[in-house]
């Protein structure tokens, strides 16, 4: 008798545990905080500032989603993840959203069971070497010792590139960007390879950035973007369209400075729909109509985020390049808000 009750209880518990991961939006709103996976520390993209607050390009996206969903850009619990731990953290529900320079690939999207919500940075893998080595091309790197962050696509690109060009190298696997930086500066490796944006961000923190050059070769396509778990389309849509809202805002000239003014109504119906003064797009995925307005007010549009964190006025000094709006020769192209 008793055992059958126990059986019953266990089965119920088992079923409950099995199906407890579908309604991310409700879970986040109930908790009042968004768990966002970011890098362990990459200046410009995600790193804590002197006051201990996280800031950066990826961090801003987390804050934008928190502003849209929770009406509070600060209600984010940042979970630092390494290249190795990030996917497990997302799959297990430890984080609701992963915004960590993650390359969108077929197998990650399909086989790992994730959903990339878009591309927030078009990147490619590059190499950084000390200037005094006198190396001008990646093809001169025969026999070099190369530091790589393990568990990333860069590891595979590197193996392919050197294999195709028939040159040898010695990989030194490291866990985090900070570790790689330490090894590289100690000359324990000749070359550091990662996404070109990451190289620029890392170099900006060096004592003498000018002593290091980034080689001209870009050996891969690395479309970086935020991702969520498969299976919760509502949550995926919220993340996707928050990103699109930031991009569209730049295209439409909506900034954090003028968003409040424009939200009172404009002659441009697209802006009105984006900011919720016309139609009710937010209700379609379970939010109120001001969601995009809050996101933009909190962190600014895509261009503002870029300039503030990694743009040419910052020590990292990345040009917009591929990450300019499609109207200006870049690849950023948000589907219409209607």
């Amino acid at each position, binding site marked *: 008798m008793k055992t059958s009750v126990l059986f019953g209880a266990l089965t119920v518990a088992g079923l409950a545990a099995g199906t407890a991961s579908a309604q991310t939006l409700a879970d986040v709103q109930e908790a009042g905080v968004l768990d966002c996976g970011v890098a362990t520390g990459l200046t410009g993209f995600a790193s804590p500032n002197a006051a201990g607050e996280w800031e950066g390009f990826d961090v801003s996206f987390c804050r934008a989603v928190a502003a849209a969903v929770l009406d509070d850009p600060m209600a984010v619990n940042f979970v630092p993840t390494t290249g190795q731990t990030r996917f497990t953290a997302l799959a297990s529900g430890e984080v609701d959203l992963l915004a960590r320079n993650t390359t969108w690939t077929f197998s990650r999207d399909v086989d790992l069971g994730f959903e990339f919500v878009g591309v927030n940075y078009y990147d490619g893998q590059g190499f950084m070497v000390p200037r005094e080595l006198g190396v001008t091309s990646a093809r001169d790197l025969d026999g070099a010792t190369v530091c790589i962050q393990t*568990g990333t696509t860069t590891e595979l690109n590197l193996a392919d590139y050197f294999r195709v060009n028939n040159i040898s190298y010695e990989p030194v696997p490291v866990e985090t960007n900070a570790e790689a930086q330490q090894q590289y500066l100690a000359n324990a490796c000749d070359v550091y390879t990662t996404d070109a944006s990451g190289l620029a961000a890392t170099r900006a923190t060096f004592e003498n950035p000018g002593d290091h050059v980034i080689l001209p070769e870009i050996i891969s396509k690395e479309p970086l973007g935020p991702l969520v778990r498969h299976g919760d389309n509502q949550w995926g849509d919220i993340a996707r369209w928050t990103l699109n809202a930031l991009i569209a805002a730049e295209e439409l000239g909506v900034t954090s400075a003028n968003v409040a003014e424009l939200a009172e109504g404009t002659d441009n119906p697209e802006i009105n729909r984006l900011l919720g003064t016309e139609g009710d797009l937010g209700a379609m995925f379970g939010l109120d109509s001001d969601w995009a307005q809050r996101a933009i007010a909190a962190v600014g549009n895509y261009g503002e985020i870029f300039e503030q964190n990694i743009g040419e006025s910052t020590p990292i000094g990345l040009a917009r390049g591929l990450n300019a709006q499609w109207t200006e020769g870049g690849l950023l192209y948000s589907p219409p808000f209607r």
Partner: protein
Amino acid sequence: MSTTTDAPAPDQGFRLNQLIYDTRYRSMTIQIVALIVLLTFFGWLINNTIENLEALGKDFDFGFLGQRAGYDINQVLIPYDSGSTHGRAALVGILNTLLVAVLGCILATVVGVLAGVLRLSKNWVVGRLMTVYVEAFRNIPLLLWIILIFALMTEATPQPRAFLVDESGNADASMLLWDSVAITNRGVFIPAPVGGAAAWFVVGVFLASIAAIFLWRRYAVKKLLDEGKVVPTLLPSILLFFVPTLVVFFLLGRPISLAYPELGGFNFNGGIQVRNSLVALWLALSLYTGAFIAEIVRGGILAISKGQTEAAYALGLRSGVTMRLVILPQALRVIIPPLISQYLNLTKNSSLAIAVGYMDVRSTLGGITINQTGKELEGMLLLGLFYLLISLLISGAMNIYNNRVKLKER
């Protein structure tokens, strides 16, 4: 007469409450219930896992072991490149784990025995120094030691370029031992022996002479016990060690030569590169486990009655000989069982290798492969199975040894 008390109760057949109130059945009832509860728990665990995997849209499949790995590994003991399979990468990792475990167990034993014996030394300085060593290494987490040693090796040693000789003939760093060994921040480069088929013949002769030394020693003991004759062992051992191998070596026209590391391009080429990650992991594991072994050895020695020492002294044996012939053989019986678990600890602790980028099985199969294929459960199960198997093998082998040295009770 036989029917005074305890007349057999009228046979009422078996009643259900006897399962609880009858001592004959009660223990069995409890065990069966416990077993059911346990099986239910595991059943639920497995069922829950399967359901959650389904909810995540993942299947349970070991096919990824046959797929192309696509990543490179720096330290390989068997041929491997990025075109090999994930299974092969796991095997490379397993061999790297075994390499550091075997090297670590050997060094830890040597360090541990020395430190354990020296900690009992009457010399105050030596004794206290060993106390400091033991306490420092036992009480600070292993991971810190690994990282500390690794950091020392990368920060405090010269980079390969420092060995370059400039126009005026100066270099910032120079090789040791007649230009044969280079200590750099990427590893220690040592000469590599190279040789053809004839080289194996020399190696065979060398192994045979080692075996001959053991046979000679056994013969000497037998002679001593049977006939009371003392047969010299030291000189014949030394001769056996060197002479046959050297004779064959020169007769065959020196078939083994050394390939010296040479600076070329970015790094030293030729020779063997002992990577800093291996050195750091090996030293940290050995020193850490050695501190525990030292305490085990000290405990084992202290467990031997003082009367044994006094008796040995009374026979005129000196303290070194007493330790070697009287105390240590008896202490071994106390030492071996806890020593086994230290070997197991060392082997399992080697999975901290990723901290310094040493490509052990945890870093290949349990790290990059899992990350690239998303097969966490399968990878972790395989990893667990490997560590379980290797631990069982080590304790099995050590138990055989323990049975040989333990006190024979008849």
